[in-house]
């Protein structure tokens, strides 16, 4: 059916490779950063201008952003674990190198995002404490396990793919530092999604065991990836969702969850066909009238259960972070003590 058996680098595989990204990235260069605007917050928002750290902003806006950016940063950091789990076992040196680089990128994303959050008057150590204490969340997708090598493919293809779909609109977020972080992050996520697709592509053209491994991983990650867009914006399942309307008005959120989810499904179905993977949804079919794919119901009961802490890896992910942090405490203390000694030595020698 698909004559050419190669991955065409010119065909967009994710939202960061579409015009939507280019437009969002072009849009962000607004006014000069660094000085407070003479215009008020509402006027800036109405004019679709960026809010910068020194601008006046409502407390609620600040809080909402801190929560969202911190949660996003935590997701990058916790998100290192599922794939980090495979670095020592990667089946080839090329795959090992790509995986190390990817996990490193996620750490970098976490750091940009913590810095963006810090422009709002919180600090990283405090945010990490909130993560470790369970007071702030991270994306629930990372509470699922990585059972086989193919999971690294499925995560790149679907999880990074869904993350990009969510993040491209954030490149136009009203808060400047967050928007700029997203522009940089989306570019790297795009590589992540491609390498995931390529892992699955190779597996699907490999041995029977490899094809089965790829299909199994797609079966397990497809539904959790769809849930990454959050609960529906309307109807029964929307209850408990929350901040959509206000975030829309403030230019933090640009699209409804359901719209992004639909875009994602529309983009992924042809890719699954190309891979030769059957997506685990008997209701998935093209709807000529809507011009979109119809798809089955997401199990929101499972979504809320995992979000509340009762998923396969919630306890493990947090425990891993906590113990790495606790074991490193003496190192961070030493670095602080050394820096203080150096500062006082400099003072003495200057005196």
């Amino acid at each position, binding site marked *: 059916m698909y004559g050419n058996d190669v991955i065409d680098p010119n065909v967009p595989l994710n939202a960061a490779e579409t015009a939507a990204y280019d437009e969002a990235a072009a849009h962000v260069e607004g006014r000069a950063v660094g000085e407070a605007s003479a215009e008020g917050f509402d006027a800036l928002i109405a004019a679709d201008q960026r809010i910068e750290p020194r601008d006046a902003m409502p407390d609620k806006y600040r809080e909402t952003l801190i929560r969202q950016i911190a949660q996003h940063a935590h997701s990058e950091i916790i998100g290192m674990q599922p794939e980090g789990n495979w670095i020592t076992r990667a*089946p080839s*040196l090329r*795959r090992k*190198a790509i995986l*190390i680089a990817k996990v490193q990128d996620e750490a970098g994303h976490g750091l940009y995002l913590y810095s963006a959050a810090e422009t709002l008057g919180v600090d990283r150590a405090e945010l990490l404490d909130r993560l470790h204490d369970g007071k702030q969340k991270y994306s629930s997708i990372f509470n699922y396990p990585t059972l086989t090598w193919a999971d690294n493919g499925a995560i790149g293809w679907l999880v990074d793919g869904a993350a990009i779909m969510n993040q491209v609109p954030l490149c136009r977020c009203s808060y400047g530092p967050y928007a700029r972080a997203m522009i940089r992050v989306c570019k790297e996520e795009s590589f992540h999604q491609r390498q995931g697709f390529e892992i699955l592509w190779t597996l699907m053209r490999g041995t029977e065991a490899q094809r089965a491994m790829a299909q199994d991983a797609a079966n397990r990650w497809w539904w959790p990836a769809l849930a990454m867009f959050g609960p529906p914006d309307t109807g029964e399942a929307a209850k408990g969702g929350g901040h959509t309307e206000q975030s829309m008005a403030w230019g933090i959120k640009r699209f409804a969850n359901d719209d992004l989810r639909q875009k994602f499904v529309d983009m992924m179905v042809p890719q699954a066909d190309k891979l030769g993977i059957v997506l685990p949804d008997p209701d998935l079919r093209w709807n000529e009238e809507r011009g979109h794919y119809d798809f089955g119901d997401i199990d929101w009961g499972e979504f809320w259960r995992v979000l509340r802490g009762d998923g396969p890896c919630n306890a493990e992910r947090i425990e891993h972070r906590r113990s790495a942090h606790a074991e490193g405490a003496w*190192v961070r203390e*030493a670095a602080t003590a050394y820096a203080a000694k150096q500062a006082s030595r400099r003072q003495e020698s200057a005196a």
Partner: protein
Amino acid sequence: MSSDVSPVNSTNAPAESEESLPGAAENGPSGELPEAAYLLGLADDAMVYAQRLSEWMTNAPQIEEDMALGNIALDLLGQARALYPYIGSIDGTGRGEDDYAMLRDERDWRNVHLVEQERGDFADEMARLLWFSAYQVELHTALTGSSDDVVAGVAGKALKEVRYHLDHASLWVVRLGDGTEESHRRMQAALERVLPHLAELFDDDEASVTAAGLGVGVLPSSLHDAVVGRVRRVTDEATLTLPEASSWRSRGGRAGIHSRPMGYLLAEMQHIARSHPGATW
């Protein structure tokens, strides 16, 4: 401490260490060209240490360090990947990087014991990285003058990387040594623990003697004093004491005689590749 006293047990004589390993000379990975065997030692050191360092990702004391240790692992992995196919071309087997990394048994690996040791605490890693990167700085400086253009090229690129690794390790050893009471104690203990595994780096085995004779390689013993000098400058600044000698030293890595952790490292690293013979990834 006089500067000509080696802090590593310098029983460098190759005959002595080989003799204590019955059969190693005949049955080990040699039988290959000495030049290939020599380069395999360098590649395996880099490969195995990359594997160990990559274990730190998600386990480091701070996120910057997850990234930095990942970066160093990537550099070392790149050094191994540059050497393996070249070794395959000169040893006549035509093997590629994954044949070397994924399909060799423990007895065919030529790395020193230092790099295969299990990950200890952060001070242990910084002690190992300090020594290994100081060794690699001297090694690659010398190898940039190799008569083999490929080796000289790999060394030239690696030299830039390992200088950064040495800076990174030095920075941390100084911070830990001159940080808190606890970090000083831990860093000093780590320097003691790493000691028995250093002498191997400077052993002149048959392969390295031949490779050095051909101008391809460098005699490991010739790097010793400069490496110790580099490390001592750092430990001095860190208010640490470079330990004098240990009661035992590791032997045999270059002849394929490894310590207990090596088999487990290989089991983990090779498991998926070996479970699917002939598959591509």
